[in-house]
């Protein structure tokens, strides 16, 4: 983490922030605080209910990193795009940074977030992002035709499964993060976190 002023802003829930349970996240928080470093306040949420958030971290690692027919970079881009639809600043910046690292193209990621249609992303990938935006907005509007359109664009069922699970997971994270008031970090801290997520993933055990 960058050696800057500590994260500005607190969670809405000081009772959560003040009660980290012993474990990997508490150790990360203690280290960051002792060095006066900015840190990702999502760690406070993970530390508060360490007993079961550990399973959430494993689930996240599987959904975003398990080798499959859709690359981790594209899954991170779906995470960032979904977070952008849901206006979750922290998640958008965190996963845009991870996507930029994994895809090796920061400009492409910002173009996609600014205007998907005008971006130089491949049409096949745009189709997947349009699909995730549609079901993020209106989950019950999905119909079988939406999925067959993806299959016709030669996405296999495994890729579609991972795409659906990714946007569903971020419809959770965006609300957990924004609803508890996790603040955005500085650009530098988000870039460093993106590099860490790209290199070592989500497991902290």
């Amino acid at each position, binding site marked *: 983490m960058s050696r800057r002023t500590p994260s500005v802003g607190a969670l*809405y*829930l*000081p*009772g*959560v922030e003040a009660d980290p349970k012993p474990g990997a996240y508490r150790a990360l928080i203690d280290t960051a605080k002792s060095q006066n470093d900015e840190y990702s306040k999502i760690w406070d*949420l993970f530390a*508060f209910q360490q007993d079961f958030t550990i399973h959430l971290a494993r689930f996240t690692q599987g959904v975003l990193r398990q080798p499959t027919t859709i690359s981790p970079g594209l899954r991170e881009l779906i995470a960032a795009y979904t977070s952008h639809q*849901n*206006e*979750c600043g922290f998640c958008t910046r965190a996963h845009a940074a991870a996507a930029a690292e994994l895809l090796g193209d920061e400009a492409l990621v910002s173009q996609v977030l600014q205007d998907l249609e005008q971006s130089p992303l491949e049409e096949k990938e745009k189709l997947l992002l349009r699909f995730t935006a549609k*079901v*993020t907005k209106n*989950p*019950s509007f*999905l119909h*079988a035709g939406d*999925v067959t359109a993806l299959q016709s664009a030669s996405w296999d069922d495994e890729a579609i*499964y991972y795409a*659906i*699970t990714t*946007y*569903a*997971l971020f*419809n*959770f*994270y*965006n*609300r*957990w*993060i*924004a*609803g*508890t*008031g996790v603040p955005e970090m500085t650009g530098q801290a988000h870039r460093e976190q993106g590099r860490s997520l790209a290199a070592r993933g989500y497991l902290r055990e």
Partner: protein
Amino acid sequence: MSVSSANDCHFCRDSHRAAAAHHLEGDYALVDAVRRDPRTAPISHKLRSLLSIAEKVRQGGKQVTSEDVARARADGATDLEIHDTVLIAAAFCMYNRYVDGLATWTPTGHDAYDLMGQRMAKQGYVPPNP
């Protein structure tokens, strides 16, 4: 149940309606009153505040403000209860999309859901070992 109902996910709505009823000694009438309108249902101020936060979380995490949290606290909610409300509402915004996104086959009829709700209330969510 309230979040799934507003998201129009019938499977999640009906299974958690039944689970809630089984946690409340089978009181489907109370659960249905909450589903129709939490503002008029016979529930505590605290629960009403928490359900209002859950609805805001459903619309989008950004809708929740520090004032909403302060109101729930004034109505007697602890930070743990407020956090769990946000966590549960957010989790169902995932589950609803998971179920609908994968076009999961879901049963119809009260009995299947009642049985499911009873199991969820008594055994929880981790499947028993075979």
